């Protein structure tokens, strides 16, 4: 069994749709972020310790 050759724009749109689905699931689960607790635009100069998580996290 073989799949047909899907045009690139169709596959790209499928990727965007999958992304939209993940965002929708996340919003339903965690709700929208609280804008009042949003961090400053730049970490550098903010005086705050970095709070994000990285691939090197354990």
């Amino acid at each position, binding site marked *: 069994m073989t799949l047909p050759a899907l045009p690139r724009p169709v596959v790209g749109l499928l990727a965007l749709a999958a992304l939209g689905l993940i965002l929708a699931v996340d919003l339903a689960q965690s709700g929208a972020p609280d804008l009042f607790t949003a961090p400053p635009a730049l970490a550098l100069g903010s005086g705050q310790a*970095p*709070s994000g998580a990285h*691939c090197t996290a354990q």
Partner: protein
Amino acid sequence: MLSRRAFVTFLILSALVFALAMAGPRAGLLMAIGIGFGLVLEGLRFGFAGPWRLIVVERDGRGLLAQLLAIGLVASIAFPLLAANGGELSPAHAPVGLGMILGAFVFGAAMQLVMGCGSGTLVNAGSGNLVGLIALAGFIGGSFLGSLHLGWWTGLASLPVLSLQGLFGANGGLIVTLAGLAALAALVIWRASPGKRLPPARLWWAAALIAALALANLVVAGQPWGIVYGLGLWGAKLAQAGGVDVAASAFWANPGNAERLGASILTDVTSLTNIGLLIGAFAVMRWRADPGAPATPLTARSYALVLLAGLVLGYSARMAFGCNVGAFFSGISTGSLHGWVWLAAAFAGSTLGLKLRPHVLRAAPQPKGAFA
């Protein structure tokens, strides 16, 4: 053509406004940086897995030299920035261990099977490559599964976190890093065939732009560019939505990770740049008058193997504390010893992956009368 390009412009602006309005200015900036990564990686064809294949198979060192140049540019600025702003910026440092080395080796092999690394999988999916989209699904699942077992892998045998700054000081660490990159570049030039040594202007520009975006990522997010954490988080979110008690696992019970699990992915640094990267790659593909030929259809068995390889890619990236971006690019450019060890192990794995690729990726037989 106008409507297609208007759609691309609308898509990019919508993504920026959405991130800004939903999660604030930092999220908007990180979305912009991610889109920038996607535009440069796809638009200027700057990659990681491809050049690693080319230096081995065709003795073409141009892409690999561009990677080393970009890393050196980032290191030259990131080292002093980190030294002066340690309270606000953090490097990509991780321990060297048995699980980490094995993970990097397996990652190197798997990335040649799916023809894309961490960033490459996102770029391929966004630019309409079906193999990339299937591999991305596997990557998300694999990096989540890897997070569940990370404690076991790190418990095998592991050194403490070692950095070049810690070993040689901030200035000494930078000098050692740049000397290491220069030595590697000399090795690549020696190995490459004449005419395949000097990168074309396109790759010089790409290296400079990728370095600028990586530094912007560090300044805005407070941490270096990464890919795997965000994809693992997406897998955790989907598993949680499916009823899995993700928070009970050791990794996701860790306070920092528990906070990310409970909060929107729009507040997660690597998720934002990953989303932007995919959108940027899509934008380049749709902007072009010719989006390119569709990927060659594979047999069903090959697609299943691509999904499996994507799963392995994600799992091994989690074991290795990052992929080509988080461990190799960001690790080396911010002084982590594990970045160098990752490079050696992943390159060895990549060589094995190249040997396995013809057995995994088999084109589907063309029907009679079809165009080849």
